[in-house]
């Protein structure tokens, strides 16, 4: 074999001397798990677009009611049921204040002598839909985030303990979860809302009362998977306490799953709130959420489509954004996807 070197064309190859100092060098820059994930997430156009979109929605939810000259609950009864009208855009033939009445197209603003512009129109009590939609978005997001946060807290602690300690503890804790998942969550939610005084708090509590079981299962599964792995064993041998192992070694590994799971609880909480509005157990009037607004609007779809269309559009945007962010995060946080 050695002679073959001589046959190689001269100058095509250089001989690299062995350098012990360079042997351990990592040529790629060192990136932490999160930097790596962020790099991959950034490549996902859908997810980034969704992040920006969601940021805008949150911004509008906070600013919308302030920008609007009308308060969300103020009624101007003579201005009831006006279609949307936005200056400038109205020249395009949309948002021009024209609505149907008794099957005919009329400029309702002219008919009712209204000088102001309602950007998203008004509802049946003459309330400004623009401020109501954003106020409603604010409330819906608040309910969803609060529910998701509580779900996460309970689920992580419960699932973590159950998975980490295993054995009898796990057995008992899992039986409890099994019972809870055996009762259809909608029944539990409905019953709890009836027991408590209706309102935002009741809805949040009702949503979380069974909601956390999903999270706890996922966390338990992950903990079970990691706790027998070598690095945990090593830490234990070195005398780390249970608390330290959970905090420093298990949690970082489980975190990805927790984040992804939360990304999917938020939209389902928003959705459930809308469902509760339908069966009459939603938010109390005159407060608005996307759910109550859509519920008010869907019956009028043939006559006052704007009352349904705008909140439904915002809801869809939120759902799409969350799902795409969730998908993106899942892809980004999955170590197997590393390129």
């Amino acid at each position, binding site marked *: 074999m050695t002679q073959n070197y001589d046959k190689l064309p001269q100058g095509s190859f250089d001989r690299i001397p062995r350098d012990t100092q360079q042997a351990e060098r990592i040529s790629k820059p060192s990136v932490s798990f999160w930097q790596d994930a962020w790099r991959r997430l950034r490549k996902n156009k859908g997810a980034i677009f969704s992040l920006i979109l969601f940021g805008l929605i949150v911004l509008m939810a906070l600013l919308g009611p302030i920008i609007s000259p009308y308060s969300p609950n103020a009624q101007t009864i003579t201005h009831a049921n006006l279609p949307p009208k936005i200056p400038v855009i109205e020249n395009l033939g949309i948002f021009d204040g024209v609505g149907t009445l008794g099957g005919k197209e009329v400029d309702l603003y002219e008919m009712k002598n209204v000088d102001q512009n309602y950007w998203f129109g008004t509802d049946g009590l003459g309330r400004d839909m623009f401020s109501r939609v954003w106020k409603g978005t604010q409330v819906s997001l608040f309910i969803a985030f609060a529910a998701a946060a509580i779900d996460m807290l309970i689920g992580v602690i419960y699932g973590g303990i159950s998975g980490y300690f295993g054995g009898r503890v796990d057995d008992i804790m899992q039986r409890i979860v099994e019972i809870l998942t055996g009762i259809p969550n909608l029944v539990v939610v409905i019953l709890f809302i009836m027991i408590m005084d*209706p309102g935002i708090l009741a809805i949040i509590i009702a949503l979380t009362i069974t909601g956390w079981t999903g999270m706890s299962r996922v966390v338990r599964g992950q903990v079970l998977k990691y706790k027998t792995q070598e690095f945990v064993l090593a830490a234990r041998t070195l005398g780390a306490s249970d608390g330290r192992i959970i905090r420093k070694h298990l949690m970082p590994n489980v975190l990805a799953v927790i984040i992804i799971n939360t990304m999917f609880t938020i939209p389902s909480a928003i959705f459930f709130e809308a469902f509760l509005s339908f069966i009459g157990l939603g938010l109390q009037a005159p407060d608005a959420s996307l759910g109550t607004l859509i519920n008010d609007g869907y019956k009028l779809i043939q006559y006052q489509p704007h009352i349904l269309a705008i909140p439904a559009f915002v809801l869809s945007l939120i759902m799409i954004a969350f799902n795409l962010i969730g998908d993106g995060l899942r892809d980004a946080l999955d170590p197997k996807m590393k390129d």
Partner: protein
Amino acid sequence: MKNSKLFWLLGLVLVLSIFLAACGGGDDSDTSTESETPEEETDTPAEGEESEGASGEPDAEQVLNLVEGAEIPSMDSAIAEDAVAFNILNNVNEGLFRLNEENVAIPALAESEPEISEDGLTYTFKLRDANWSDGTPVTAQDFEFAWKRALDPEVGSPYGPYMMAGTIKGATEVSEGADPSELGVVAEDEKTLVVTLERPTPYFMSLMAFGTFYPQNEAFVTEKGDDYALNSDNLLYNGPFMLTNWDGTGLTWTMEKNPEYWDAETVQLETINVDVVKETSTALNLYQSGEKDRAGLSGEFAMQYADDPEVVRELEPTLFYLKFNQERNGEETPLANVNIRKAISMSFNKQDLVDVVLANGSLPANYLVPTEFTFTEDGADFREVNGDLTGFDVEQAQEFWATGLEEIGETEVTLELLGGDSELAGKMDAYLKEQMETNLEGLTVNLKAVPFGVRLELDEAQDYDMQNSGWGPDYQDPMTFIDLFVTGASHNLMSYSSEEFDSLVEQAKGELAQDATARWEAMAEAERILIEEDAAIAPIYQRATMALQKPYVQNIISHPFGGDYSYKWAFISGKE
């Protein structure tokens, strides 16, 4: 590879079709108006036929298709307590009297007007020859049995004691467990029923048209036992129609013409198909597709159809008002102060409420006893005596408010407004809240919407501040509204108590019973005290209902109390 292409194509088509279906609603304003126009055109000829139809011949096919808003909880006339059941009972059964097309109680199973004793206490009814749907004759014993059954505490009839106690002799005692033979109802023979009253009751005839006073066949009821009235086979009918195809829990039933009915030749409809549809929009879609002949229009829909030629409006003698609870959990509420009550009752604009929020022809109410409900013998409306007793007046309301706040020593008051959980109730309560808070400085109103069953319980426990409440009459007399608010009455439940009011009601029920004019005036004075002087309740509106009805449907009669509608005289004309 061919396969995979086919698969792609198939997949794409499926995706596309779902996408289109899902997005179809986004831009509907154009499509819907376009496609609605031809439909309206087809309606116009139908409307033209109506004028011919009204005078014209009934069609060969006499089928009416209706929707109902809720299922039947019970068809036992002793147990029934809801609008759906009373409506059906009114069409499949019959009492001694029946409300006719002019809403006057006329003899039905009674052959003629009863003989009334001089003191107005004994009524002797002669029964006409009539049969149950199984062919057995309806007898006076059937009435005696049914009434005693309705009073039996074991049966638990909600309306039995409520309607009879204090009216029929011995009813109170029997309902408390005394020997039923003490009841002043005796079947002297098969065709003679003698009823003895506790005190003269001028409106007794209209009571006889009410479902609780219908007869029941003893042999049949005993034979069926616990299964009696659980489905349409376990019932007997003596009215214009027979109930069929009702399985006891379903959403559908049929009424068919009863060949055994004594007046069967008047009845023209052969079949009435009823389906329970709880969503107004669904009912409307069924109406527009031609499957149903009538559909109710609630708040949001009422405005859209206001000018539709097929709209029928009916003013009902049902009144909605705010109950002011003066004592909650043993403590006086701010509403115990009369000026606070007056201020609130004058602080909201009722005209805007009925025009914009309800938009169905309801009337703003400044009274308790509805208009177009009760009349003197020469046709004068009870409302003519008192007229309006309160009204929307911001300035006056604010004056009362200031005085009231000073008297109770507060600058801010927070009150809870208890209401129903329907969409319309929510909208109306939101409107009231906004009006009250805008017009009365320092007032905060918290809305609480709960399901019906929960509201009843809160009402009973007197656990609320203000409540949006409604009442429809049980018989044709102002008393059905006025005696609701007597001290300790089962509907009072707000700690309102006025000696003057109580004694006027007592007089009208007792010593003045035979003197129509004086009685009338006593009731009017009581109403004035209740609303003008004490502002114990704040009237809001008198309800009207709006419905779409196909032009070929003729002569459905609506009634102010008891069953809502009679189909006995209805017929189809010009449908084909």
